[in-house]
């Protein structure tokens, strides 16, 4: 299954429960919202009550955290079935998950554990991607994860690995620029080298988020404002690429909604003028 680029729809926000009522009451200037897929693997109640109202007004995309596409265990079709049912109900513009493994056998770590960057992983992920996309009958966009270690077994760096995976499968990526920055700090590489190595045709979405800096290392907490270094990376990226769907992602320590909106406005202001022309109306 070949990938199809999603439409360019502008600047979005991660939809979180604490902002439901304010979004419904104020109709903020947000071009689209991204939901966490697994939060809607439930039958009803408030999550669906609010989402059904918000999706009447805004395009929705779905972002998963538990597919564990890199796992060497059997493909979890129970999970894929729930995801497919949710996709049918939400009708998202596109779906994404992480390039990692989270579970093995019956054990679920609920973490985004890095893959070794090897030929074996490339083959494995290519096969898994094909199975998943065929089952879901739509492309799956993959997000780069933050990492705190590199494996002895790795045969290439992360950006070469991603570019090769795109080359083999046509898959597209959700580049989390914060994650790139976190990994760059933890492994001491130049994040620009990472960003420059990914073909524009392979980039479907951008995440901008925050982290916690411990000096000796950086932890991807997604609970802080976007830092200056990440804004600079985004600025450079935006000025050298055609428009890419861009989103502010916050997963904890939620501030007032106006602070998140201020970050979104800042992201818009950094993007060149051609990023303001949306395909989606």
């Amino acid at each position: 299954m070949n990938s199809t680029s999603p439409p360019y729809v502008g600047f979005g926000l991660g939809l979180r429960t604490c902002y439901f009522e304010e979004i419904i009451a104020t109709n903020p200037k947000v071009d689209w919202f991204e939901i966490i897929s697994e939060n809607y693997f439930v039958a009803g109640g408030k999550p669906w009550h609010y989402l059904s109202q918000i999706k009447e007004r805004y395009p929705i995309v779905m972002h998963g955290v538990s597919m564990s596409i890199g796992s060497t265990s059997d493909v979890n079709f129970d999970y894929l079935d729930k995801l497919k049912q949710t996709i049918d109900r939400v009708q998202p513009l596109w779906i994404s998950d992480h390039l990692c493994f989270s579970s093995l056998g019956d054990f679920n770590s609920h973490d985004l554990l890095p893959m070794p960057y090897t030929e074996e992983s490339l083959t494995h992920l290519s096969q898994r991607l094909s199975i998943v996309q065929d089952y879901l009958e739509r492309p799956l966009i993959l997000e780069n994860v933050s990492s705190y270690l590199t494996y002895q077994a790795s045969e290439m760096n992360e950006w070469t690995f991603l570019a090769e995976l795109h080359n083999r499968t046509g898959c597209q990526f959700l580049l989390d620029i914060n994650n790139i920055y976190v990994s760059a700090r933890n492994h001491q590489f130049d994040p620009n080298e990472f960003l420059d190595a990914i073909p524009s045709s392979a980039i479907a979405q951008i995440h901008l988020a925050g982290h916690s800096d411990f000096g000796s290392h950086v932890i991807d907490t997604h609970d802080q404002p976007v830092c200056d270094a990440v804004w600079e990376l985004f600025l450079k990226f935006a000025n050298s690429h055609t428009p890419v769907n861009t989103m502010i992602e916050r997963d904890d320590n939620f501030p007032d909604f106006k602070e998140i909106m201020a970050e979104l406005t800042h992201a818009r202001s950094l993007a060149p003028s051609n990023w303001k022309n949306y395909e989606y109306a």
Partner: protein
Amino acid sequence: MQDLWPQATGKIMSTLEQLQSDFIAMLQGHNTSFTDHIAQQTGLSPGQRSEIYQNAYQIRLKKVLEQDHEMLGLYLGDELFDQMAESYLALFPSQSSSLREYGERLPDFLSAHTPFKEHGILSEMALFERLLLRAFDAADGKLLELAHLQSIEQKAWPNIVLQLHHSVHILTCKYSAVESWQALKNSTSPPPPELNNTQYWIIARARDKRTGFYPLSECHFQCLMSIKQGLPFGFICEAAAHVTGDQQQGTLEVMQLLQQGIELGWFLQSSAMQ
């Protein structure tokens, strides 16, 4: 259900399988040789790098229990709650793709393991908090309205079957779990754990989607249990009469329950009623 790990099936592991198996074992504290997989880099040692993942795993799951069982945490205090979370994590690593389900076995854990099993209120309080969570995102459904009941012919009443909303849960308490939960929520001291009589509660999502809970009389408890079993209206009235010792009083109790339940959205418009 997924297959067992390759190791358990006797299959020879690939390099990737071995690495993932060792990583997961490290997270659970079973394998300290995982660091052999980690490349030496400047800055943190391989041991420190693997610890970041191990700590994150433990912190993440403990945080889920803290969020889902906030009042239980207050009741236990930090030290006992940490002990509970660590023991639970060791016995029940997560097997679900949803963190929401992680604490599902906590009530059973608390009723089976020392020192918690000596205090029955803990298991009850954990169960009460689980039921609140289950009610929160249970399936929606078309609610029974008073007008619908009024349209039913009198002769059909004994055979109508009421259906509880998917969010409705009935809880029987031997201890003051719910009263203590309420007290802690209101930042006041919880009452003594022992109750003079068994207490019954209904937990359900109201029409405005808010989750609520209400005390039940024994009569209303018996009626709701009969409804849950799918028994027709005539049997429910008999159950109520049995508790009250009076046919007329029993019917009155059932009508009061119906009125309250319709107002609060406890009943679905059952197909058996149409």
